């Protein structure tokens, strides 16, 4: 990590009011300014790498709200992530990490097989039984949390069933490579189906290569830089077809990661790859006028939650809002602090469940205040976190992916 990045923080505090963990605790150690200071003091030898220091840092969600807020270009979240990655790098991975990062994520079909028992157990109706009886209480907390977060899974992962090459409806205006995120494929397959559908309706031929692999975000988190590079290389090669106008994803987290491939690999093909990556909202917004003609009224009161990976990492805020507003009959209500993290943060909601709950509740309170019937967002992490939160506390409010809303309006 560059020392200069640490001393660039001039301690103005402008980032503090946007940091979810500072808002909950008022602790300097849980603020972006404090986190940069911890890293700096560690680097300068003023502090040792104690367990406590690592714990303080581990509460960062890497939500990047501080980066958006910082006028002088410091990115506390990224610095913490970089530090964590560097620290873990080269260390032997634990059994679980090794299994997930090396054996499952690089091979989508194995990942899917791994999910089969879970789907089976859901289908058997065991889920309700187990949930009511609280059998999961006997398992370690993280497992219980993980189960609680899972909505009903689709019959089959989308990657398995989707046609690799979908022709445009009507005249072809271009070709899109669709990057299908793991979680989208395994859990939110309906949303990604809607995404592909919208693109074909708008005249795009959509290629969804079956051999694409995980975007690499989990590898980065775990400090597995080698794994990250291998993964990135594979995807760059798979999507290196010259006929692709864009590489589109409907997963905010994947999009943010794919746009960084050029930094990881630093070669011409990865630069080209990253430059083609678009969040689905960016492409749809280009064709707003046509889209508008296809949409039918939906009498819904809607609000929108910015995913950190889309708003803060990719700087996309306007497009999704404009798209929601296209739907006739719909009332749009802006959410207060719409771009504040929902507490999902990758696996944060599993590892730091108490803090994640506090952050989630702040989000739920703002949603409640809008009086909306449904919330739209653009990232599977947020979908999972909010789905569970709404189910438990605001069951009347639905949540959907942006493309699900648009598809719904197109098909009513």
């Amino acid at each position: 990590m560059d020392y200069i990045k640490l001393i660039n923080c001039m301690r103005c505090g402008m980032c503090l009011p946007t940091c979810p963990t500072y808002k909950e605790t008022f602790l300097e150690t849980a603020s972006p300014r404090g986190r940069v200071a911890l890293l700096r003091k560690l680097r300068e030898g003023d502090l040792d790498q104690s367990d406590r220091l690592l714990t303080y840092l581990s509460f960062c969600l890497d939500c990047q709200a501080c980066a958006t807020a910082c006028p002088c270009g410091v990115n506390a979240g990224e610095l913490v992530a970089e530090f964590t990655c560097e620290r873990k790098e080269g260390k032997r991975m634990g059994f679980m990490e090794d299994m997930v990062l090396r054996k499952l994520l690089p091979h989508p079909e194995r990942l899917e097989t791994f999910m089969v028992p879970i789907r089976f157990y859901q289908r058997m109706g065991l889920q309700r039984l187990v949930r009511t009886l609280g059998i999961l209480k006997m398992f370690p907390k993280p497992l219980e949390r993980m189960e609680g977060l899972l909505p009903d899974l689709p019959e089959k992962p989308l990657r398995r069933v989707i046609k690799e090459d979908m022709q445009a409806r009507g005249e072809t205006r271009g070709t899109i490579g669709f990057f299908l995120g793991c979680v989208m494929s395994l859990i939110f397959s309906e949303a990604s189906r809607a995404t592909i559908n919208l693109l074909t309706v708008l005249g795009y031929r959509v290629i969804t290569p079956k051999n694409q692999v995980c975007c690499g975000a989990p590898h980065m988190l775990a400090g597995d830089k080698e794994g990250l590079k291998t993964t990135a290389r594979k995807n760059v090669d798979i999507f290196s077809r010259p006929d692709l106008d864009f590489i589109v994803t409907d997963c905010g987290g994947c999009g943010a990661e794919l746009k960084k491939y050029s930094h990881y690999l630093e070669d011409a093909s990865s630069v080209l790859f990253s430059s083609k990556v678009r969040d689905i909202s960016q492409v749809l917004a280009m064709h707003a006028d046509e889209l508008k003609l296809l949409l039918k009224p939906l009498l819904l009161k809607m609000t929108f939650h910015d995913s950190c990976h889309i708003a803060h990492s990719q700087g996309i805020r306007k497009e999704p809002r404009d798209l929601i507003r296209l739907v006739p009959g719909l009332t749009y209500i802006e959410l207060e602090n719409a771009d504040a993290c929902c507490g999902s943060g990758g696996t944060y909601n599993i590892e730091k469940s108490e803090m994640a709950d506090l952050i989630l509740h702040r989000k739920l309170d703002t949603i409640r205040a809008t009086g909306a019937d449904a919330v739209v967002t653009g990232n599977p992490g947020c979908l999972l976190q909010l789905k569970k939160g709404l189910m438990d506390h605001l069951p009347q409010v639905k949540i959907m992916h942006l493309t699900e809303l648009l598809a719904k309006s197109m098909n009513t």
Partner: protein
Amino acid sequence: MNPLFIKELQTIVGEPYTLADPESLAVYGYDATPELASRPGVVLMPGTADEIARIMGLCHEAGVSVTPRGSGTNLSGGAIARNDGVLVQTSRMNRIIEVDEENLTATVEPGVITSTLHREVEARGLFYPPDPGSMNISTMGGNVAENSGGLRGLKYGVTSDYIMGLTTILADGSLLRSGGKAVKDVAGYRLNPLLVSSEGTLGFFTGITVKLIPKPQVKTTMLAHFPEMRQAALAVSAIIAARIIPATLEFLDKVTIKCVEDYAHVGLPLDVEAVLLIEVDGHPVVVAEEAAGVEVICKKYGCSFFQTAKDENEALKLATARRTALSALARLKPTTILEDATVPRSRIADMLKIIQDSAKKHNVIIGTFGHAGDGNLHPTCLTDERDKDEIIRAHKAFDEIFDAAISMGGTITGEHGVGLAKKKYLPRLIGESGIRVMQGIKHSFDPKGILNPGKIF
């Protein structure tokens, strides 16, 4: 610090709110002031005024120093505690106790964030004008202790103009109430003006009652581009001389413009030497008249382009961008040493010239922005703390700038306070007798000298 003493303090605020581990102490050792840091002995986060009184009582007995802290954004080292002292952070005390619409007052706890109060009162058609650049994170306690100004200072004044009542815990833990909701009060010495800007050295504020005014009906926000700095400065003086008092009359030089635009992307011009951000507010007819007057004057003084914000949103964007100026300047170099010299507003042009000359003479980069209408500029030296030679040159330049400010009948700090950072300049400004009187006041409030020691003098 003695662990037994920490234990005693802990019984007052509770375990989660007592921080004594090396990591916490390390990051509570700074505020927003460059070059200064010192680890406190312990950090406490009380939740009530009563807890603060008990902390003060205990520390008074033991002769241990106490430094109040809001959000740690002050720029003079005021919230830096001593190694053997207690740092008391007020963030948890963040309730707006009351907005009294009959008396037009609001009463808050010290940890309330300035902009939170703005939102709360504006929702009722009322207005609390002081709006420091840091308003989204600065606390009301900090604002009072520093007598903070803001972008609307020209027309509406600074924090002290709005303080009606204070509840203060004195050094020995006893309670002092000064002022209140009555608009007139001549019972004895006026303590509020003394307590406001006392930088945590006279007492610990636990309750603050501020005056509210009706929210101006409309406002117009304008941006005037100038090919030369001097033209902008002359326009400032001319606007005021023409008896137009805008709410906001802010100056940004080329270096600042570039940094702010780099961050905020609000379309500031990159090819001019200076801009003025001007806001007039009030009755629609008056606003229209004043806005027209401002435009005429700016053009007369060489404004090359005059732009009026088309809606509330654009106006807000411009003001928000201006608020980031100081931090944005740090994009260029890691250490930003900023000063706060203030001169009578007719001397703004002379002051700008002196800043430019000093920067050239000592070979340092200085970006200047600030509350031009108040004569309060923030020349900010962009430097790197690792370059010791450059730091020395920066301080030499500021020495000259301060002397010039004093000789023009100005002051060494308009709104950031003396704290630790400007201690050495204070005698130059107020002389030995001034220091003696101030020390006498300090002594009568705090004979043991335990409240934020080492600040101001």
